[in-house]
């Protein structure tokens, strides 16, 4: 049994670890993609690579609140990589790996990394082996280290962006994440899009609730509600326990009464019947004997059937003489008289 518990615990922990690992990779997502025509005569992007060159770039965000490393993941612009029938080597061939050994790929909570889609992997970790088409449709996908598990993918329809504009993941008025075109002046490589983040929350409260009434009402309701829930639970639980305790007390008193009765009977009748009333005692034994001796007791139904049975021991006829006693006495008396005469 102990071994089973140990195995179960081990299996649960292993499962949890596996899920945690998967969660790590799944935390990455594309957050902004900027299409730049490298052949533009005047620079359309102010974000340049280590060589001072402009090119299209892809921003990936660690959307979680813990640190995760992007190393070993694969990025591709080849839609064929979505085919589940492809073997791993075939997949890897059409992908660009994010190599290990570069601390920049280790992303802390909400941190972003920019990869240059310039087809020049020899320029470093942050460069992919493919280019994005500034005029046509672009597809990009991010795969986990096994080259099979899709983490995120994005399609930018042809003509959506002009050179220098970016496609950004933004929160709409209802808080849903949507992709939207960002003008050149609002492109934010390695940073959250304009109008998102912590300051926005504070600013919203400041703007919508300058006197703090809403905050006070909402928060007090939550605090009161929370403690009221606790109150209700422990009120009901306490009441139930109280009720159960009362029932237990009644049961105990009843038991004491029964015991007292038994002892009183024993005191009256002695210990032979173990405190059971004598009549009940005899009846119980009689029934048991009756059953044991193969009486008519119906075992299956549990119904005690008593068949009428006539015996002659109390037959009135048997108690009487053939000749009535008075007549016989009279006869005897007359006989005596006659003999005397």
């Amino acid at each position, binding site marked *: 049994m102990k071994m089973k518990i140990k195995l179960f615990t081990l299996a649960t922990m292993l499962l949890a670890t596996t899920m945690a690992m998967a969660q790590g990779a799944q935390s990455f997502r594309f957050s902004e993609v900027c299409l730049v025509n490298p052949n533009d005569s005047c620079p359309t992007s102010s974000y340049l690579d280590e060589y001072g060159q402009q090119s299209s770039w892809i921003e990936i965000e660690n959307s979680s609140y813990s640190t995760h490393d992007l190393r070993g993941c694969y990025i591709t612009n080849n839609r064929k990589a979505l085919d589940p029938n492809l073997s791993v080597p075939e997949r890897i061939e059409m992908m660009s790996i994010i190599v290990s050994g570069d601390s920049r790929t280790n992303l802390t909570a909400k941190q972003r990394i920019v990869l240059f889609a310039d087809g020049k992997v020899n320029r470093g970790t942050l460069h992919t082996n493919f280019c994005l088409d500034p005029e046509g449709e672009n597809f990009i996908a991010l795969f986990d280290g096994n080259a099979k598990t899709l983490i995120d993918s994005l399609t930018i329809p042809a003509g959506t962006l002009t050179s220098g504009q970016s496609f950004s993941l933004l929160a709409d008025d209802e808080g849903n994440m949507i992709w939207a075109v960002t003008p050149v002046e609002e492109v934010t490589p390695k940073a959250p899009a304009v109008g998102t983040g912590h300051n926005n929350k504070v600013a919203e409260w400041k703007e919508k609730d300058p006197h703090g009434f809403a905050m006070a009402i*909402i928060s007090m309701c939550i605090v*009161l509600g929370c403690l009221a829930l606790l109150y209700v639970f*422990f009120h009901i639980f306490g009441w139930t326990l109280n009720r159960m305790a009362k029932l237990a007390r009644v049961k105990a008193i009843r038991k004491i009464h029964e015991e007292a009765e038994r002892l009183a009977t024993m005191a009256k009748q002695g210990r032979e019947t173990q405190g059971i009333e004598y009549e009940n005692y005899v009846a119980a034994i009689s029934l048991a004997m009756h059953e044991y001796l193969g009486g008519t007791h119906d075992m299956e139904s549990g119904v005690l059937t008593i068949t009428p049975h006539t015996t002659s021991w109390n037959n009135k006829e048997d108690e009487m003489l053939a000749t009535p006693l008075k007549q016989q006495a009279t006869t005897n008396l007359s006989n005596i008289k006659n003999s005397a005469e």
Partner: protein
Amino acid sequence: MIMLESTGILSFIAQKFVDFLSYTGFANLEWGNLIMIAVGAFFIWLAIKKDFEPLLLIPIGLGIILGNIPFKSAGLEIGLYEDNAVLNFFYQGVKLGWYPPLVFLGIGAMTDFSALIANPKLMLIGAAAQFGIFGAYMIALAIGFEPNQAAGIAIIGGADGPTAIFLSSKLAPNLMGAIAVCAYSYMALVPVIQPPVMRLLTTKNERLIKMKPSRSVSETEKILFPIVGLLITTFVVPSGLPLLGMLFFGNLLKESTKTTRLAKTAGSALNDIVVMLLGLTVGCSTQASEFLTWDTIFIFFLGATAFVIATASGVCFVKIMNLFLSKKNKINPLIGNAGVSAVPMAARISQNIGLEYDSHNYLLMHAMGPNVAGVIGSAVAAGVLLGFLS
């Protein structure tokens, strides 16, 4: 030649001596440092002579002195805010917010929730007293603080030092030193602040109300309380998880009766270590340049206001509750002040004032109910504010 050499050595010695002097506290002293050192000394005096929260005010007082010893900024790695400094290492517990949950672990291991379980309606008083936080929040906004700063300041009204440090370290780190010192100072001043408010808001007849004795609480209820409490509060306010989780964990260690050793450590040695480091580093963080500002004066004003509002709302809430309770179940409004979570000072004040008016009216155990509910309430309130503003 020898003369020249000796002159060279002498000038070298003189130069180094002058250098040394430039490193001393005297050479770098500012008037602000002197004021803060005086404040630190005053705290120590309060703790030793007046017996005001000595376990907290002595580490904080000495911390204030320590943090205001002037020194030359020359990369010596000795200051609280300097990387690799020992004090900076200690300060991480405050900065990253892991001291307060450890203190809550100790509080949980030391707290007996029986009074609350026996009479669960007292929980509502603990919730009502949290209005002090939100009242102060509104006043702070009116003064001109940003919502996140206002929330960090307002939590002083919860009368819970660790919660105040936890929330202010997340929402208003620049005000944390002032908020922490203010919170602990007012906690020490609870016997001064609360009684006038309690007397003002209650009639003599109300003060004489005798509450019926609490029922006894079963072991099952005591064990169930931290588990159910944790589930309910953290499901409603997950942002309060660090504080509430540790509070109920500590209490479960105590009530399970199977981990007495752990509960004892959490409630004594571990708690003492954390309180020492917390007090010291919080005191250190009150450096004159950061502390001696108008903001600090406002914070102290808001802290006092928050305490008054919290006390008043607790007492008034009991009076409202009494309107709906039968005569034999009435609650003495003097326990309303205990809804703030200054455990057990606030409950002790209820007891003392109750005894002033009726020498046979012992309110301590009744007041402990709202008092411990206040601990939960202030942690929930901190979680709500953190969730909305972080």
